[in-house]
């Protein structure tokens, strides 16, 4: 099966028309010093959905998000948020979008409560109400105990929660989350996911970037895969995973010279090409079902290909990339 079939990556008209979309972008581009960080991306995010942008470091995810949030000028292309032009009406866009960056954008010199109060006041909320909102958000995000402590003593998870709380003060209908769980421990990650689901239940639209396939799988209704500033695939997480296989058989051959022979065996048994890893003698094979691994191993032994290590794993982002782009996430970056 060809991978590129799974998503519409052309610029066809979006269902429901441009104004019906939470985010509608065409040919979005940004150049930094001659290098195209974002190279003509089309994006349609429907109201009420969680849209995941999946890609490795340096793929252009953050740059794209910053352009949509009016934090960076758009070099080429157009973008609309709820029908409002991003470049033409930045002040309106800033009232519609809450941004939570990759690095917590809160004030280190203030306490959690003071931060929330500051951002409320800046948005024109009168002082008594600002105090109430700060107290409410601190409660909702489990930050009451630390409310009046210096942020310097906060854990990564607490900072992220405070950051997200700050983005929700004005209850924006669209929320941008830039790698919301990168660097968080599994428990805190789960809490962050619950929070994001809660936002959607209230009618918020969420555009999030992530490096983790399982995060996109857990949260996103639809996913776009970005590489080198370009969209390489788009679809539901299930479509994406089907393309890559339900699980991956990773083989390390005892003799790297036997790679062609091993590849032939895989083709004969499964009818698909294995993905050759940059590491010498390593093959990754996408499996529709994990138990097909046995068949492959038996065929290998029959063919006399000796294997030094075997594992069956969920496909990682690296495998998605190997499958979609033919190269891993670390290559030439």
């Amino acid at each position, binding site marked *: 099966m060809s991978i590129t079939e799974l998503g519409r990556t052309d610029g066809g008209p979006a269902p429901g028309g441009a104004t019906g979309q939470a985010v509608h972008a065409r040919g979005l581009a940004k150049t930094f010093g001659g290098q195209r960080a974002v190279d003509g991306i089309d994006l349609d995010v429907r109201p009420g959905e969680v849209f995941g942008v999946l890609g490795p470091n340096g793929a252009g995810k953050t740059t794209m998000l910053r352009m949509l949030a*009016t*934090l960076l000028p758009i070099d080429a292309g157009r973008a609309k948020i*709820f029908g409002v032009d991003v470049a033409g*009406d930045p002040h*309106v866009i800033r009232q519609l979008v809450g941004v939570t960056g990759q690095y917590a*954008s809160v*004030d*280190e010199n203030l306490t959690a409560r003071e931060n929330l109060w500051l*951002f409320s006041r800046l948005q024109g909320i009168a002082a008594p109400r600002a105090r109430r909102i700060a107290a409410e958000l601190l409660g909702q995000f489990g930050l009451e105990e630390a409310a009046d402590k210096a942020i310097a003593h906060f854990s990564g998870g607490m900072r992220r929660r405070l950051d997200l709380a700050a983005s929700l003060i004005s209850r924006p209908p669209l929320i941008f989350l830039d790698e919301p769980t990168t660097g968080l421990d599994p428990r805190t990650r789960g809490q962050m996911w619950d929070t994001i689901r809660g936002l959607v239940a209230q009618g918020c639209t969420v555009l999030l970037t992530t490096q983790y396939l399982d995060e996109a799988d857990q949260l996103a209704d639809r996913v776009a895969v970005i590489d080198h500033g370009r969209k390489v695939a788009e679809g539901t997480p299930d479509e994406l995973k089907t393309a890559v296989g339900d699980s991956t058989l990773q083989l390390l051959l005892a003799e790297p010279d036997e790679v062609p022979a091993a590849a032939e065996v895989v083709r004969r048994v499964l009818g698909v090409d294995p993905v050759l890893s940059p590491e010498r003698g390593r093959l990754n094979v996408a499996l529709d079902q994990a138990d097909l691994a046995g068949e492959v191993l038996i065929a290998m032994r029959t063919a006399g290909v000796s294997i030094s290590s075997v594992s069956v794993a969920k496909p990682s982002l690296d495998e998605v990339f190997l499958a979609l782009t033919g190269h891993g996430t670390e290559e030439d970056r």
Partner: protein
Amino acid sequence: MSTTIAPAPGTVSAADRVAAARRRVTVGETLDQTLTMAWRAFKKMVRNPEQFFDVALQPILFTAMFAFIFGGAISGDVESYLPLMIPGILAQTVLTTCMATGTQLREDLEKGVFDRFKSLPIARIAPLAGPMVADLLRYTIAATLTFGMGLVMGYRPGGGAAGVFAAILLAIVTGWSLAWVFTWVGTIARSAQAVQGISMMILFPLTFLSNAFVPVETLPGWLAAFVRVNPVSHLVTAARDLANNALVSGEVAWTLVACLVVIAIFAPLSVRSYKRHM
């Protein structure tokens, strides 16, 4: 720690929000946002008291040092030099204080919280003007300490308390206005060190090529010509007239005009370059 995170109930309607969105920031909102930003800068100052070192130490050190070094040579003795020098130190201290505005803004711009300021629907000038309002406190400390140190050394201003107060007020206004130059430098320079370097190059000619420490009559003609138009000279002369003679001279007006010109040029430049920084 219980962290069941459930956002408040109630739904968000995008269409209503688009319809209710304000198209631009009003002047009232801008003022409110600037004062909120000033509150933030004030909190930061109080929590990092080392920021007060320059405004506290410089007036004391420079007043003592300059009085003893130049006093005898220029005015015959230290005591008769003080009425000439104290208003000069006042101008110099206030200028150095506003240089710090630019350096600190540059450092602040690097921080994550400025991303949030930029993403909020607020006036672009508020994050720049807020810290400058908080800096009024620093100018007040610097100016008061300069006169305080002068009094300790035997300076008896002829203008009385009212004259001294007026001189301090004028110095604060001038400092705040000139700070826009350094704020602009803060938004264009690549690093806080660069801001420091560029600011020094602006600051030194402005303070030393003025009548702050020496009478203009002793200078060669071409230099005297520059010194006479230097806004710092106007400030120094105006402050001398106020503090020593309680005289509101035309120099006060010239100082204020210079301030307005500086604000009219550098405030829009600063906002423009801050916006481009995004």
